[in-house]
């Protein structure tokens, strides 16, 4: 009898909660009726129970029939593009981590083996992350797509004008652009998370490498969660682009939203003067980059103060973002026309 319980459970656990009890009752009744027909009232042998369950068939198929539809995480309609996007994302992550490995090995050749092992670990983590993100995006697309298809059936009939536009040359997205974005995003994640001190002025003297960092690593690391979210949202958006391969109003909207998010995080970060390396000028002098009191020193000092204490950088970032948003809006209008 345990087999019957297991069969009923296997069917009902795939069904919506509120239908379970009734279908369970119904199924049990059916199985008992079928057994009774075979045994004519006697108690059934295990063989007879098995025969009845075989006759009822695979519980997943039974559940499908009860539900009236098959369930997919990613259905056949999206599967091809899912695989091709996944492949591209994986390649991009692989390239980004490969570049990272090369940079680290060049900078620190004595520990190549360590970097190599680290590299393998980050490749495994990176590919897993990439897989998860791509799957999440396509899962959402599948879910919303399926909902829409269900809604449409009752709302209105399909019209030929519903057909998607053929990709125009001007609205086509070359895959190179999102691939490059993903590569850079991954590079930035790694760089910001582990090696903020490498962002700075590099100086080689007599084969010795000194870096005068721009940022205060400790303060910078407080902003890391925002940067991660930002870059993740950015990568998500690039995955969408790889999927549609052309500019749609929705994609342009996302692009604008991400640009504004970038701007907000940048303003938050750079309006906090503590994020900058307070000893930058001192370290520049120490490393021999500039001589204290010289004309070069005062020029560098003015520029540095303008960037760190003034609003020059924020204005610049704001301006660039504004230009980008405006060009995106123009693109949206041209796309519609």
């Amino acid at each position, binding site marked *: 009898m345990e087999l019957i319980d297991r069969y009923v459970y296997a069917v009902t656990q795939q069904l919506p909660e509120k239908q379970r009890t009734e279908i369970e009752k119904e199924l049990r*009744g*059916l199985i008992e009726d*079928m057994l009774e027909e075979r045994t004519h009232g006697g108690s059934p042998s295990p063989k007879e129970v098995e025969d009845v369950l075989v*006759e*009822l068939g695979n519980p997943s198929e039974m559940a499908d*029939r009860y539900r*009236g539809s098959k369930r997919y995480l990613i259905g056949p309609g999206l599967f091809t593009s899912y695989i091709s996007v996944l492949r591209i994302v994986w390649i991009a992550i692989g390239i980004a981590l490969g570049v990272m490995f090369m940079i680290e090995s060049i900078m620190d050749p004595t520990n190549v083996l360590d970097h190599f092992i680290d590299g393998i670990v980050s490749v495994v983590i990176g590919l897993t992350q990439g897989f998860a993100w791509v799957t999440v995006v396509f899962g959402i697309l599948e879910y919303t797509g399926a909902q829409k298809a269900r809604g449409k059936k009752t709302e209105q009939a399909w019209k030929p004008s519903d057909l998607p536009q053929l990709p125009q040359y001007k609205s086509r997205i070359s895959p190179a652009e999102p691939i490059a974005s993903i590569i850079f995003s991954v590079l930035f994640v790694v760089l910001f998370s582990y090696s903020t001190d490498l962002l700075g002025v590099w100086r080689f003297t007599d084969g010795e490498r000194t870096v005068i960092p721009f940022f205060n690593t400790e303060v910078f690391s407080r902003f890391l969660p925002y940067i991660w979210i930002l870059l993740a949202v950015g990568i998500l958006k690039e995955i969408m682009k790889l999927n549609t391969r052309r500019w749609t109003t929705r994609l342009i909207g996302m692009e604008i939203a991400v640009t504004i998010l970038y701007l907000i995080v940048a303003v938050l970060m750079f309006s906090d003067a503590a994020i900058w390396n307070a000893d930058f000028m001192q370290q520049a002098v120490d490393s021999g980059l500039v001589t204290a009191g010289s004309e070069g020193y005062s020029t560098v000092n003015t520029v540095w103060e303008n960037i760190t204490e003034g609003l020059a950088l924020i204005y610049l970032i704001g301006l660039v973002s504004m230009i980008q948003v405006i060009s995106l809006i123009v693109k949206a209008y041209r796309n519609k026309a």
Partner: protein
Amino acid sequence: MDIQETIQSLTQELRRGTLVLCVLSQLSEPQYGYSLVSILEEKGLSIDPGTLYPLMRRLEKQELLVSSWDTNEARPRKYYQLSDLGMQVYQHLRQEWASLAEGVNRLMNGGEGYGAN
């Protein structure tokens, strides 16, 4: 795929379309799922209970059938019966079937059909 498999899958497809009609035709009196399986089988239309049970639920959801649980017997059973709507739909389907069967027969037996006798 060998010919037997092809025939089998096409036959199944053919029968699937007529299932609703078969079920509706027997439900002017209340029946529970397994009694309907036996009735259909007696009349030469065997139907898999794993198909029939979900089908009856769907027809109930479409309001063609009404159901009630009978808990007086040894085991509780869910009885289904045609609703008024179900009755109307059945009458229409019946006519559709008659004209479909007639049309298909004419095609197969008529002068131009292949295999006409």
